[in-house]
């Protein structure tokens, strides 16, 4: 037999095997249930991965950054003190960059809350200096700077950025873990749906199974028929749910970008995360196939 004939023979044998269970792939609710679950799973996973990336970006961004405040009511003294503090910071070895915040920029930032009074000069607004520290041991360096600046003036304070954004980062991290939990629960639910569907299919094809069994078909031969059928249903449902979820993620991404918010635009998906999302429908098919095989083999194991 030539390789071509052998391939044709294998195709014919596969077609004959596939006829053993009635055709009609998208039959029953299982593919649609899997589509809905895949849709929700992909959205949850995308949210988890996006929030994780945001927390990571935020952490990388904020690590080693701090703001020095010069809280002095007298504007002249404040300017002088600010200049001397900036100079002192520039000469500190572990301070990589010093960026005094321009009074106009500061006024712009507080104007939404305080109105035009913010720039009238009547309000004592502290001077701010943003600094970047050299990498590593941020906490210790901030403590050393705090001592150093207190020696210059007790009116000078230093606040590491990570400290005031820590609760937000914690919230995002918790949401990320919640999303991971949801993905896990959805996977378990998908497995349970497949087990129920496999049992139902097994029961409804009991007559055919009995005949095959008594003809000497092995459990694995029979289980393969169900594996394939349920695998195809899972493939259809998974692909459909994934595609719709993908569209929603792209649309949401566009909306997040449109907000212009630095925080919201930090929620993004690098290509590795897209690869993880793409692996979800594949995992769903594998999970469904294995669950179907396990269920059918268990059912057959009860027969003689």
């Amino acid at each position, binding site marked *: 037999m030539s390789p071509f004939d052998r391939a044709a*023979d294998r195709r014919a044998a596969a077609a*004959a095997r596939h*006829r053993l269970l009635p055709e009609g792939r998208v039959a029953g609710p299982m593919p649609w249930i899997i589509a809905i679950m895949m849709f929700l799973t992909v959205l949850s996973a995308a949210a988890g991965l996006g929030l994780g990336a945001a927390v990571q970006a935020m952490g990388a961004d904020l690590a080693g950054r701090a703001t020095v405040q010069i809280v002095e009511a007298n504007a002249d003294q404040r300017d002088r003190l600010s200049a001397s503090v900036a100079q002192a910071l520039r000469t500190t070895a572990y301070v990589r960059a010093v960026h005094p915040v321009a009074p106009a920029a500061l006024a712009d930032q507080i104007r939404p809350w305080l109105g035009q009074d913010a720039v009238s000069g009547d309000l004592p607004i502290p001077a701010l200096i943003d600094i970047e520290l050299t990498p590593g041991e941020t906490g210790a360096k901030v403590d050393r700077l705090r001592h150093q600046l207190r020696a210059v003036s007790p009116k000078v304070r230093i606040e590491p950025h990570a400290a005031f954004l820590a609760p937000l980062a914690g919230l995002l991290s918790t949401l990320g873990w919640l999303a991971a939990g949801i993905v896990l629960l959805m996977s378990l639910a998908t497995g349970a749906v497949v087990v129920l569907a496999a049992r139902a299919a097994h029961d409804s094809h009991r007559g055919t199974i*009995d005949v*095959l069994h008594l*003809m*000497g078909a092995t459990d694995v031969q029979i289980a393969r028929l169900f594996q394939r059928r349920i695998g195809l249903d899972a493939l259809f449902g998974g692909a459909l749910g994934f595609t719709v979820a993908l569209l929603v993620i792209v649309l949401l991404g566009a909306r997040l970008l449109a907000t212009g918010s630095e925080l919201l635009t930090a929620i993004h998906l690098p290509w590795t995360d897209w690869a993880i999302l793409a692996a979800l429908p594949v995992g769903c098919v594998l999970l469904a196939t294995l669950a179907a095989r396990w269920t059918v083999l268990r059912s057959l194991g009860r027969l003689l």
Partner: protein
Amino acid sequence: MGFTAARPLCHGRQVGEAGSAKAPKTRMSAIVQFENVGLRYGLDSETLSDVSFSLASGGFYFLTGASGAGKTSLLKLLYLAQRPSRGVIRLFGEDVVTLPRKRLPGFRRRIGVVFQDFRLVPHLSVYDNIALPLRVAGMEEAEIDAPVSEMLNWVGLGDRGQARPATLSGGEQQRVAIARAVIGRPEILVADEPTGNVDADMARRLLTLFEALNRLGTTIVVATHDLPLIAQVGSAQMMKLDKGRLSDPTGSLRYPPRPPGAG
């Protein structure tokens, strides 16, 4: 071809001997051996009790008895659909009662079964139904067509290969069931009331098919309560079940009674 079925003998014990330590020696050609077999469903009383017999390879056997006597239960033990509650069953020389479950498919492939209710797979064509045992056995597709076509012609359904079972008459379905049971050239063919749903003419033709198969060396076991049918097979032996017990398994209950001194 080339196989001439010797006049088979049915070796067994009277009910009173069941369980005796002095079990009769079976011949080397015994293909089926039952020793003190009992079968109980759940907590009910035994459906089969103390059944002991052996069947010679290449023999033709009828199993008869009234409805509810246990014929189908005995056949289920024979084609490995059921394990006995007690006793020993040997098929092809091996104890199948203690045989690991994973080895049973290999034994089942050596046994063809014609079910009382045919059990054709309704969504498969006649052709695919008949090809089923060959596909289960892993035969290549290219090698399947010739025997299936030959079998279709043999049972007179050469032009109905693509028909669905539901479109066939009872007799045609019966012939498909027989073709499916014999296409794998089983060593034992078990048929449960194969003529129960067909007219007398068809019953005679089916029996002719069984005899032809028997001449090829297949051991035939047919459960029936159709005594005139039994009379048509001169070489056959008859076992009778009565309330779950095998009575007079020596063949003397043949119908019509065998003349003294005959075979």
